[in-house]
């Protein structure tokens, strides 16, 4: 009975990917909680805090398939604790009363927070991998089109000529910064939680710190002696990085969406053969995926807002904050990762219509290089005077639909300052590219140098995936 589009079965993976939903699959999450309990028992057994046999039995039985899930389910119907019914199942599964040693001195939030970190780590590992793939694709795109001329636009209006390569290396700058952000935050978030009910470790006994460190290390996490039960800035920071990342994706998606407009037609999102865009307009070719990415990004941003708010904890623990965070995190991760996967798909098959770019560039060819003329004239009559003059001439030409070049040539004040041959430049906007090509080449070189310093992967992918 899947009620949320993330879990839809007939039309799956529209707002999610299989890989990401598997991280947050209910049973996978419970298994992670059991892994925590097994690790805790093992360390406590080795240190003589609980009997060695108990630790071994707990380790053997901490497998979801060995638990009576019917009775766990029954327990959840009556309990309001997120963990106890599952622990009850583990306790009952253990023989010889060894189950009594389960969860010895930990608090519920220790388990759930630690598992959340494992989930976030798995998500970041995927995001890092896919971002680097996206970077490779965009590097190639930028390289291939470093000289492909097109109209740059400001205020949605044609501004000056540029190249597609330059547009793409600007995307690449953002992508690279996100990769660096993920590298930077990864070690900081890989810290588990095991501090007992209010962070004092009271019930963990005299060897509390050693127990905590050992348990979390077994799970591949670091340990910090100060609890972060009510200190969620890391999660807030990660969520804002996700927002930043997904908003870059949305910006790229939006650019493609805009440039795919029928009237512009410069870029096209790839369409798989047989995909039908409209149920009633047979001619349509819609940028569906780009639109989905924008929609996903909006959700991610609002989920980030929720998570940021959840930083305002009261006292040592605060369920109002925790539950809003716990509810937001899975969606946050799934939506961000899905948007990224989508953009990998879109950019890898992106259709570039260089001919349309050129046609559009020539749409108002005399006008689009008015800046060139401005600086050409500035030396003679001053820049402010040229701006005033050309503004007047270009608007008159635009309104009358006449040639700007002719208007300049015929003007009594400036017409004689430039030769007809020189003015021919106005007819070839694709030559007025400034340093675009050079900027693209330098940026590509720079990013490729940085890529060499990247680790291949940030974390191990969860073996259960």
């Amino acid at each position: 009975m899947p009620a949320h589009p993330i879990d839809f079965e007939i039309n799956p993976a529209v707002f999610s990917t299989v890989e990401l939903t598997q991280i947050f699959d209910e049973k996978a999450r419970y298994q992670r909680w059991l892994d925590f309990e097994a690790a805790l028992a093992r360390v406590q057994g080795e240190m003589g805090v609980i009997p060695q046999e108990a630790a071994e039995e707990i380790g053997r039985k901490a497998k979801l398939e060995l638990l009576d899930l019917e009775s766990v389910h029954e327990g959840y119907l009556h309990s309001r604790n997120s963990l106890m019914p599952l622990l009850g199942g583990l306790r009952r599964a253990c023989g010889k009363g060894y189950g009594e040693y389960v969860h010895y001195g930990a608090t519920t939030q220790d388990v759930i927070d630690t598992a959340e970190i494992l989930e976030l780590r798995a998500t970041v590992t995927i995001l890092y991998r896919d971002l680097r793939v996206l970077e490779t694709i965009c590097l190639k795109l930028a390289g291939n089109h470093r000289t492909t001329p097109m109209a740059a636009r400001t205020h949605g209006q044609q501004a000056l000529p540029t190249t597609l390569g330059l547009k793409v290396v600007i995307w690449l700058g953002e992508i690279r910064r996100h990769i660096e952000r993920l590298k930077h935050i990864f070690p900081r978030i890989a810290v588990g939680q095991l501090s007992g009910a209010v962070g004092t470790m009271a019930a963990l006994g005299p060897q509390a710190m050693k127990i905590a460190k050992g348990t979390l290390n077994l799970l591949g996490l670091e340990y910090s002696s100060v609890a972060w039960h009510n200190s969620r800035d890391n999660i807030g920071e990660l969520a804002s990085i996700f927002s930043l990342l997904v908003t870059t994706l949305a910006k790229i998606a939006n650019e493609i969406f805009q440039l795919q407009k029928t009237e512009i037609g410069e870029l096209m999102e790839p369409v798989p053969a047989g995909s039908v865009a409209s149920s009633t307009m047979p001619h349509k070719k819609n940028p569906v995926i780009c639109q989905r990415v924008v929609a996903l990004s909006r959700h991610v941003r609002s989920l980030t807002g929720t998570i940021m708010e959840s930083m305002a904890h009261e006292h040592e623990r605060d369920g109002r904050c925790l539950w809003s965070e716990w509810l937001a995190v899975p969606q946050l991760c799934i939506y961000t990762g899905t948007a990224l996967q989508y953009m990998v798909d879109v950019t890898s098959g992106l259709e570039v219509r260089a001919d349309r770019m050129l046609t559009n560039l020539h749409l108002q060819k005399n006008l689009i290089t008015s800046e060139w003329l401005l600086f050409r004239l500035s030396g003679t009559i001053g820049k402010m005077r040229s701006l005033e003059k050309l503004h007047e001439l270009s608007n008159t030409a635009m309104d009358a639909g006449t040639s700007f070049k002719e208007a300049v040539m015929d003007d009594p004040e400036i017409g004689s300052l430039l030769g007809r041959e020189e003015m021919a430049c106005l007819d070839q906007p694709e030559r007025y590219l400034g340093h675009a090509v050079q900027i693209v080449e330098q940026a590509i070189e720079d990013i490729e140098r940085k890529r060499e310093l990247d680790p291949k992967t940030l974390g191990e992918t969860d073996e259960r995936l």
Partner: protein
Amino acid sequence: MNGCEPNSHIVESQFYSGGYTTPEARKIFCDRYRYQRWLDVEAALALAQADLGIIPAWAAKNINEKAHLCYINLDAVKEGLKVSSHSLLPLLGALQQACDDGAGQFIHFGATTQDIQDTAQSLEIRDVLTIVTRDLSSITQQVMQLAERCMDLVTIGRTHCQYALPMTLGLKMAVWLDELWRNMERLAALRERVLVSQLFGGVGTMDAFAEKGFALLDKFSQRLGLAPPLTAWHASRDRIAEFLSTMALISGTLAKIADEIRCLARDETGELEEPFQMGKVGSSTMPHKRNPEMCEQAVVLARLIKANAGLGFEGMINEHERDYRAVRMEWVTVTDTSLFVCGLLSMMKAILKDLIIHEHRIRQNVDQAATLISTEALMFFLGEVIGKQTAHRIIYETAMKAKETNQSLLDLLMVRKEIAGKFKREDLEKTIDPANHVGMSQELTRRTIDHVKEKLSTTGTITERERLCPLTEKDGRCNVQ
């Protein structure tokens, strides 16, 4: 002018304020005027209390006379605020100083600070709503006229930013009109709910007014032209959240219209354009640019207003009987939202007043797109003979080929064997003429215009209150009626 008067908020800028708000709106929130309103509320309270014999009539008369900023030592108020950290007491102290013969002892008799400030805020909101209603009503009229004018003008409907089907420009505007009208209705409902007074004492029990509390609330409210609420709303801020979110809805509508104009102003489309006159400069380095900057600014304002709506919801969470963590946010959110929404409305009026409609570009775009945007009609026409699903498939394949090879859809269709034998080219041509496929565009536009026109005619206009800052008035007075 070159000296440094600290006016760092953009709405106070001597140069750029106009992009964010209007002088009319700024007057409502000018801090002196705010104090004058608080004094007005205190005066109304004193007069109402005298009517009921709670305080002596001579004292009320004197308080009413002296409750004007011109009698208030504002320097002393400023000093008092520093020392007391109380937002109202220093002003009341100064009023007391201004009163004669011990009348000052009867000021603020049994009210709590928030009674005065919330009531004054309702008065501010009333002034804002007067402007908003007036301007939104003008915009509704403007759009109605535009829709009337463009009733039959065939244009391209777009979905996913792609050409979809033909329609009329009038219909596009009728959709705006419908949305605008719903906002007018929201405004009317909002006024009913929001414009209430507050006079319930420290925790909302009316303790200090005893059995005269209800009569006092009625008289006090009547003097200020506000409705008396059923209970205290010190810690119940849904009204303010509703005000903020309604302003966000209105801004959302306006920004959507502005953004549509901006989109259709692209060089490649060129169908609509915001007003232009020589001297308006698009770029400091590209002399040819003509930018839709007013439309862009409209979107900016709508975003700012929307952000405040979120804070409005947060402000609803109050603890116990009063909670300043919630209420003090309103000093920022209500002020900013009001200033921005007035700026936005005035900008939209200017955009719509001289909106440029490039009819020949619209016709050109339609003509050029005819074969593509009428494929639905073509599908139904062919479908009569060969079945609709088959027609969808054939046209889909042919349209994709036409797009990729840059050939005419009709040329390609007429060489397909499923089509060639069964249909005549001129019938296909007639079928795809966009003017034949605007559906019910005109009727829908007509109906919407008629509906809104009728509704508007039965809506009374709000009489505009004097909204001058009292300090600019000759005698510095602003009498409570």
